[in-house]
Each structure stands twice: as structure tokens, then as C-alpha cells.
């Protein structure tokens, strides 16, 4: 296929995968009002749409690999794809399933591969080994155009997009299937919600099975739109849409006050982050005049370069000048090679602004408080939205937008990630609700990803995103299975010993736990490395942070915190497993009624646990790593030297593989430390909760203050309540009062004054002017009245008057003329 054909083919497939769930949503939400309340039709439509989406995504990934020669170049799956016609047999075609084809000889290939990293990462046509660009971009339609400013709905497809698409659709398919079982008690006209008390009893309502699947489909659409987005504004659009889907799903049990409050909290806290996002967008829009990431075609890029192309050259370097006034200025390459400069601090501000959005979406410190509350949603939602996909969107955006971040922004990201991962891990240690433990674990793992991206481990962070998505969705589904089996009991202190009752759940969960804690057997045996996906990704993260510390002495915390976090993670994850599945049951009643979930629920567990083990197979030599490296930003291979004004260095791949002590590279050293603390954490958990040799209550008593502090989640909710929520209500009260009292008061005062003036005016009119007029009239009347006596009506008298009058007049004339 020619590049153009491939582009059309990929965009067609991904567009279908993207839009199918939207169609599904429309069908389900309307079908729901007709007749399917008691049938599973909606679920089948949803599963069909997302499943077909998965097939499309996978086909796209495979086509891309085959046609760009990626598979051949990296020796993965060569034979398999050469024998398979395009779009043919998809059934066994999972990109990661056939990892076994890959031999260990690839180790030798690795160094060379690293050296080529720059080409892999370079944008657009610079990819000199292949006629295919690393990125395919195009537009669906235009939103608006103002002179030189254009906004459009477009797509941006590179290997990261393809991997994300495949991952999201695969996990979503599994979770949709799982939800058929989990939500089946909604298939009724009379659902009893035991969490809502109305009057004397519980709330009865019709089931809402179809609505759940409609919302899930809408979410899938939004999430895929976010991933495929061709520009950062489109990311923002779908960012908000996944937010609203999250709102709808958290608040699925609309009757529960706690659920609707949690939904509001999730959306509003996200909006706080989006406020920063919006500011970042404003800065970019005003400084760069475009939102497009980058334009792969050279001719078009000359006219309308994307953000990355304006800021960085082909080697990923940006040009910083020092202006006359001593401030740092970034040089941007505009259309037709024109140059302009913007202040450096603006670029930093834009980066931090965009990152604020990611902080909100990925529940990072200080906006992490919404995610634990979001567990009010049904468990499949927690698995899909609040662990595997949506919350990872923040990490995805940081990865996608990486070239726009200056080292100063990156170090901010790293610190936020480090603080988050540590804080959330500590809270997870004391949480007793099984879903909340997982929620804090999610926050903590997202912190790892952020940290990794912040310290320059672009691939490591995104690899962790993918691996985490698999094992965390697995664990959430397992917890869902437990909750389902225990009749909606979520408190771990009431569980225990469930291993025997629900073995599949227990052991798939154990796989997830081992994957997240990163336990592994060091070394390679029989051509295999006995390590699960989490080991590889977490290893890579800790290694990068060690390399970062090596380059930047003062940032030691960025290595210590993730290392400590690894130990705590192992502790609380094993604590969860032992608490729930091991030992003797703590609540016999619950234990007696517990049962293994039906196949529709455990089959997805098995599929996910397969990926939790194998998806990052072979770590840095494996296919997933290689795929991600392919879309790594330019220059990441060599890292970035300290540059003005922050003087912060960013490590590249070779820094991670430098020799550190003896033969051991940085990566090896970090791996050993991480493994050691993880094993220590796991053993401690075993002692407390597995063997029950130590009593956690004793420890709790000794550090009662700390324990309470952790149970209260570091008191962030109280803090925010006091700092933001209450003041907002107070201010809004004041403002409403301002309207009522001041503005309306002024108006009423004015109108009162006007009425007063008119009252005086009326009095003046009535008393002075009317009085005068009346007086004149009255006088006239009286005179006339007094004259009426002359009018006797007697003719003869009148004649006398006439004669007399005439005489008088004549006499007068006579006298006067004398």
C-alpha cells in the first residue's frame, strides 16, 4: 500500500471503531424506551459495537505494522503476517499474543535499535528508512475558520494511537461482557436499591440495564475520540465528554445521594483542572495560532505547521534566545519558515496549564479527591472509566503533548506524580473498602506514570499506562466479582477465605496483584523471563528516575518516593489479597452465601489476566515497548542537556543503560532496589494478613494519630471544603444579596425618590395651582350670584333700567364733555 492508501485505510478502520459505540449509544438509549427493559438486547448491541471496534483497531494495528515494515524490521510476527491477507482472519490475531515468535537474539539488536531511536521518533517525512511517515494525520471536517485560524475535527494516528485504540477497545470489550453478568440484577421491573431508604423500606424502581450500556457505549465513543484526536482542542472536547460520561456513570444510581454527590464532585473537580487546561489552550492559541499537534506532510507543514513543528526542530530541540531585556524567548518557526518569538515563561505557563487538565483527569495531587468517591459507580465503571482508560487520559495527553513541555514543566509533572504516588499509596494501606483500596492504588499508579513522563521516561510511562490498564481493570473486575459474589459487600474486614469459594476470581486477582507489585524472578530461564507486565513497566520507571537523579543531583526525592511507593504498593496489594481471599472467613454469614461468578463474568477475568501477564512481554526488548518507541518524540533517545533557564537535564535511553557500578547498568541497579522493596512489602503483608503473625491493630494503636490522618485521606476533603466549597457558597450568597440589597436597593431607592418627588408635585398642584384656579372661579361665581338679584324677570323694570341707564350714560357723556 502507498502511504496515502494506508492512511485512508487506517483512518477508516479507526473511525469505524470510534463511531460504532456512538451508534450503539443512540440505539440503546432509544431502544430502552421501547421494550428491552427485560432483555439483554442493549448489552449485545454494546458488546457488538465495541467488539467490532476492537477488531477494527487490531486490524489497523496489524496493517500498520505490516505495511510500514515495522514487524519485519523488528522481527516480530514476521511469518504470521506475511501469510495472512489483509483484514482476513482476525481471530487469533492479537498483536501481543504471538510474542513467543520473538527470539532472544533481539538483545543484540537492542543497542542498534536505541541508536536508531532518533529516526523513529522524528516527525513526518524524516523517517529515512521507510516511505511511511510515523504519523498519519487528516481532518474529518472543519469546525470554524477565522482568517488564518482554523479549528477542525481531525485524526492523528501513530503507533501510540493504535496501541491505545487496541488497548481501550479490548479492555472495554472485556468489561462490557463482564457487565452483562454484573448488571443482570437490573433486568427487572422492580429493582430494590438496598442503599436507599424511602419511608419505611427500600427504594423500588424499574431496572436500568439498557441505560447502563448506553452510557458505557457513549463513554467508549468519547474515550476513543480523545485518543484519535488530531489536535489539542479536539482532545479538550472529548476530554469534557469523557468527563460527562464519567459523571453519568458515577451517578448511575441516581437515587443515592452519595452517588450523585460523587458524580458532581468528579465533574467539578475535573472542571477545576480543565480551567487550567483552558488557560493553556488560550496561551497556545494566541502564541502559536494553531492547535494541531503536527502536520506529517511536508508541503502542508510548510503552510500550516503544527505545534510541535513550530516549537522544535527535527531533532527535538527548541531554540531559546535571550532578549535585550534579559528575558528568555522561545523562537517559533511559523508558516513558510517565518520566525517569531514568545516569552519562555508563557510556554512554561501553557505547559503547566495543560498539565492542570491532566492533574484533574488523572486524579493527581492536589485534585485527587474525586477518584475514591467515584467508586460509587457500578464496579465495571470503576474498572473501565476510573482505572483503565479515562483516568489514564491525563497521562496519555502528557505523552501526546510531550514536545510542548519544557524541562521546568516536566519537573513539575514529576514532582506532582511523586507526591501523588506516595500519598495515595499511604492512604491505600489503611483503606478497608476493597474498591477504595484499588482506587487509591490507581491514583498511585497514575502518579508513577506522571513521574515517569516527568523524568523523561516517555516510553516507560506510557508502557505503564498500558500494563496498568490491563492489570488494574483485571483487579477491579475481580473485586466486582467478589462484590457480586458477596451480595454487594465491599468491606474487606467482613471477608476472608474466599479463595475456596471463588477460585477463579482469587487466582486471577493474584495475577493482578503480582503484576502491579512487580514481583519477578530475576534472570532468564528457558528463554523466558518470569516476570509479569507490571514488572517491566515499573522497572523502567524507577530506572529512569534513577537516571534523572544521576543527572540532576537535587531531585533525589524523585527516586526515593517511587522506590518507597513500590514497597508500599506491594504491601497494600497483598494486604488486599490476603484480607479477601486467604485465611479463615471473618464473617461467616457472608462467607456462606458467597459464590463464584458465572462464566460471563470470569471469562473476561481470564482474558485480562492473560494480558496482565504478557502484554509487556520481554520489557524493553519486547514488541509493546518497540511500538511505543516508534512514536516517541524526537530527541528523547539522547535526552536533553541542561538548558536555560531551568538548567534541568532530561535523561535519554542511553543514560538508563549506562554502566553504574561494575557491570550493572542504571537499569539493573534500580530494578534490584525496586524488586527488593516490593518483596519486603509483600512479606510484611503476608506476616500481617496472610499468616496473621502480626496484629495490625497493635500497630494501629501505636500510630493512632497517623492512622487517623491516613484514614481521613490526609484531610483533603475537609481542607477543600473549608477552602473552596464553603467560600464559594458564602460569596454566592453575598452576590445574590448584593443584587437584592445594593442594586435593587438603589433602584427601589430611586423609584421611591421619584414617587416622593411626584407626591410633592401632586401636593403643589393640588394646593397651590388648583387652589388659585379654584379661588378665581369661586370669586367669579360669587359675583355672578350676587348679580342675579337684579334679574327680576319683570319687563317693566327692565325698561326702567334701560331708560335710567341710558339717561345715566348720557349724563355721564354730557358731564365728561363739558
Amino acid at each position, binding site marked *: 500500500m502507498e502511504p496515502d492508501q494506508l492512511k485512508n485505510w487506517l483512518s477508516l478502520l479507526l473511525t469505524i471503531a470510534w463511531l460504532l459505540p456512538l451508534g450503539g449509544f443512540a440505539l440503546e438509549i432509544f431502544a430502552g424506551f421501547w421494550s428491552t427493559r427485560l432483555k439483554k438486547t442493549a448489552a449485545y448491541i454494546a458488546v457488538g459495537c465495541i467488539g467490532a471496534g476492537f477488531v477494527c483497531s487490531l486490524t489497523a494495528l496489524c496493517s500498520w505494522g505490516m505495511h510500514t515494515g515495522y514487524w519485519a524490521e523488528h522481527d516480530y510476527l514476521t511469518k504470521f503476517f506475511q501469510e495472512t491477507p489483509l483484514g482476513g482472519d482476525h481471530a487469533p490475531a492479537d498483536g501481543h499474543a504471538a510474542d513467543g515468535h520473538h527470539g532472544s537474539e533481539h538483545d543484540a539488536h537492542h543497542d542498534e535499535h536505541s541508536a536508531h531511536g532518533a529516526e523513529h521518533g522524528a516527525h513526518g517525512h524524516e523517517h529515512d528508512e521507510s516511505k511511511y511517515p510515523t504519523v498519519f494525520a487528516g481532518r474529518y471536517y472543519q469546525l470554524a475558520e477565522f482568517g488564518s485560524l482554523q479549528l477542525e475535527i481531525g485524526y492523528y494516528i501513530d503507533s501510540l494511537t493504535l496501541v491505545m485504540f487496541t488497548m481501550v477497545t479490548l479492555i472495554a470489550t472485556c468489561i462490557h461482557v463482564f457487565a452483562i453478568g454484573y448488571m443482570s440484577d437490573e433486568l427487572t421491573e422492580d429493582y430494590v436499591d438496598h442503599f436507599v431508604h424511602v419511608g419505611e423500606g427500600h427504594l423500588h424502581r424499574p431496572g436500568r440495564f439498557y441505560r447502563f450500556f448506553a452510557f458505557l457505549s457513549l463513554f467508549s465513543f468519547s474515550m476513543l475520540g480523545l485518543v484519535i484526536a488530531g489536535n489539542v482542542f479536539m482532545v479538550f472536547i472529548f476530554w469534557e465528554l469523557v468527563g460527562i460520561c464519567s459523571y453519568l456513570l458515577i451517578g448511575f444510581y441516581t437515587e443515592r445521594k452519595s452517588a450523585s454527590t460523587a458524580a458532581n464532585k468528579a465533574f467539578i473537580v475535573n472542571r477545576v483542572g480543565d480551567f487550567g487546561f483552558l488557560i493553556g489552550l488560550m496561551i497556545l492559541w494566541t502564541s502559536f495560532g494553531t492547535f494541531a499537534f503536527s502536520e506529517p506532510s511536508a508541503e502542508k507543514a510548510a503552510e500550516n505547521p503544527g505545534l510541535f513543528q513550530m516549537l522544535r526542530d527535527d531533532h527535538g530541540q527548541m531554540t531559546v534566545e535571550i532578549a535585550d531585556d534579559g528575558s528568555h524567548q522561545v523562537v517559533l518557526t511559523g508558516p513558510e519558515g517565518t520566525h517569531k518569538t514568545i516569552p519562555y515563561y508563557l510556554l512554561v505557563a501553557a505547559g503547566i496549564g495543560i498539565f492542570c487538565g491532566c492533574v484533574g483527569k488523572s486524579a493527581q495531587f492536589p485534585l485527587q479527591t474525586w477518584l475514591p468517591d467515584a467508586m460509587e459507580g457500578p464496579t465495571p465503571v470503576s474498572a473501565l472509566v476510573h482505572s483503565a482508560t479515562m483516568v489514564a487520559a491525563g497521562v496519555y495527553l502528557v505523552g501526546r503533548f510531550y514536545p510542548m513541555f519544557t524541562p521546568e514543566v516536566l519537573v513539575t509533572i514529576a514532582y506532582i506524580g511523586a507526591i501523588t504516588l506516595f500519598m495515595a499509596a499511604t492512604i491505600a494501606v489503611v483503606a478497608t473498602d476493597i474498591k477504595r483500596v484499588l482506587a487509591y492504588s490507581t491514583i498511585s499508579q497514575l502518579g508513577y506514570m506522571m513521574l515517569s513522563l516527568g523524568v523523561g521516561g516517555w516510553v516507560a510511562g506510557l508502557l505503564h499506562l498500558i500494563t496498568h490498564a490491563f492489570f488494574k481493570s483485571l483487579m477491579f473486575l475481580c473485586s466486582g466479582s467478589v462484590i457480586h459474589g458477596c451480595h454487594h459487600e465491599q468491606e474487606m474486614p467482613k471477608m476472608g477465605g474466599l479463595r475456596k469459594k471463588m477460585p477463579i476470581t482469587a487466582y486471577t486477582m493474584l495475577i493482578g496483584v503480582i503484576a502491579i507489585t512487580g514481583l519477578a524472578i530475576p534472570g532468564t530461564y528457558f528463554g523466558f523471563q518470569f516476570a509479569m507486565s507490571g514488572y517491566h513497566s515499573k522497572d523502567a520507571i524507577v530506572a529512569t528516575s534513577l537516571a534523572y537523579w544521576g543527572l540532576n543531583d537535587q531531585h533525589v526525592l524523585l527516586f526515593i518516593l517511587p522506590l518507597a511507593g513500590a514497597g508500599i504498593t506491594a504491601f497494600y496489594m497483598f494486604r488486599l489479597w490476603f484480607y479477601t481471599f486467604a485465611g479463615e472467613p471473618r464473617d461467616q454469614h457472608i462467607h456462606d452465601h458467597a459464590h463464584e461468578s458465572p462464566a460471563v463474568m470470569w471469562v473476561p477475568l481470564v482474558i485480562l489476566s492473560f494480558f496482565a501477564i504478557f502484554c509487556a512481554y520481554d520489557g524493553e526488548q519486547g514488541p509493546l515497548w518497540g511500538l511505543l518507541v516508534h512514536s516517541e518524540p524526537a530527541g528523547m533517545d539522547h535526552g536533553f542537556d541542561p538548558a536555560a533557564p531551568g538548567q534541568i537535564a532530561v535523561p535519554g535511553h542511553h543514560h538508563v543503560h549506562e554502566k553504574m557500578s561494575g557491570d550493572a547498568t542504571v537499569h539493573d541497579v534500580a530494578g534490584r532496589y525496586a524488586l527488593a522493596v516490593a518483596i519486603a512489602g509483600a512479606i510484611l503483608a503476608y506476616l500481617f494478613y496472610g499468616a496473621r503473625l502480626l496484629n495490625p491493630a497493635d500497630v494501629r494503636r501505636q500510630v493512632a494519630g497517623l492512622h487517623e490522618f491516613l484514614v481521613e485521606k490526609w484531610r483533603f476533603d475537609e481542607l477543600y471544603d473549608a477552602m473552596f466549597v464553603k467560600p464559594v457558597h458564602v460569596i454566592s450568597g453575598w452576590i445574590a444579596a448584593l443584587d437584592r440589597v445594593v442594586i435593587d436597593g438603589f433602584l427601589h431607592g430611586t423609584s421611591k425618590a421619584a414617587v416622593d418627588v411626584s407626591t410633592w408635585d401632586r401636593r403643589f398642584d393640588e394646593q397651590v395651582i388648583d387652589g388659585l384656579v379654584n379661588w378665581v372661579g369661586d370669586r367669579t361665581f360669587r359675583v355672578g350670584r350676587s348679580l342675579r338679584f*337684579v334679574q*327680576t324677570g*319683570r*319687563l*317693566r323694570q327692565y*325698561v326702567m333700567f334701560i331708560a335710567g341707564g341710558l339717561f345715566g350714560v348720557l349724563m355721564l357723556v354730557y358731564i365728561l364733555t363739558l
Partner: protein
Amino acid sequence: MPELNFCILIGAVLFVSGVVCMATKRNAIGVLMGVELVLNAANLNFVAFARYTALGLDGQILSLFVIVLAAAEAAVALAIALNFYNNHLTIDVDRADDLHG
């Protein structure tokens, strides 16, 4: 001009007689007669001035008007008197005080 003075004197006598007649008669017909006397006194003066001064024919023409007017007035006045009689069964003008103020 003794003739003129003589005429004016006769006119004055006639006028005063007419006025006295109007003022003293209670009978409406008598009052009417007084009116005629007053009018004719005026006529006499008109004619006299026309005859004996340089005023020309105006006086004579005006007196012709007055004669016509007097005839009309007499007709109307008699009609009023008749009507009055029909309503009050008398023509005593002292009884007719409907127009008093």
C-alpha cells in the same frame, strides 16, 4: 335750523311717551304700543336728519328698514303675547317673571 330742532323735539316727546308707556303699561299690548312709539320717534329723527342735513338718503332708507322691522317685530311680539295668554290666561307682563335670576 328751526325745522330740524322742531322735528327732534317732536321725536323726543314721542320717545319719552313711548318709554313711559312701556314702563307703565301692564298690558302687553300697551307695552307694544310704547315700543311702536319709540321706533317711530327714532324714524322721525332719521328722516329729519336726512332732510335737513347733508347726510343724504341714508336716513330715509334706514327708517324704511325700521318700519319693516317694526312690522315684523309687532307680528312676533303679538304671537308671543298670544302664546303667553294661552299659557297664563292673561297678558299682564308683571306676571311674566320666568326669566328672573
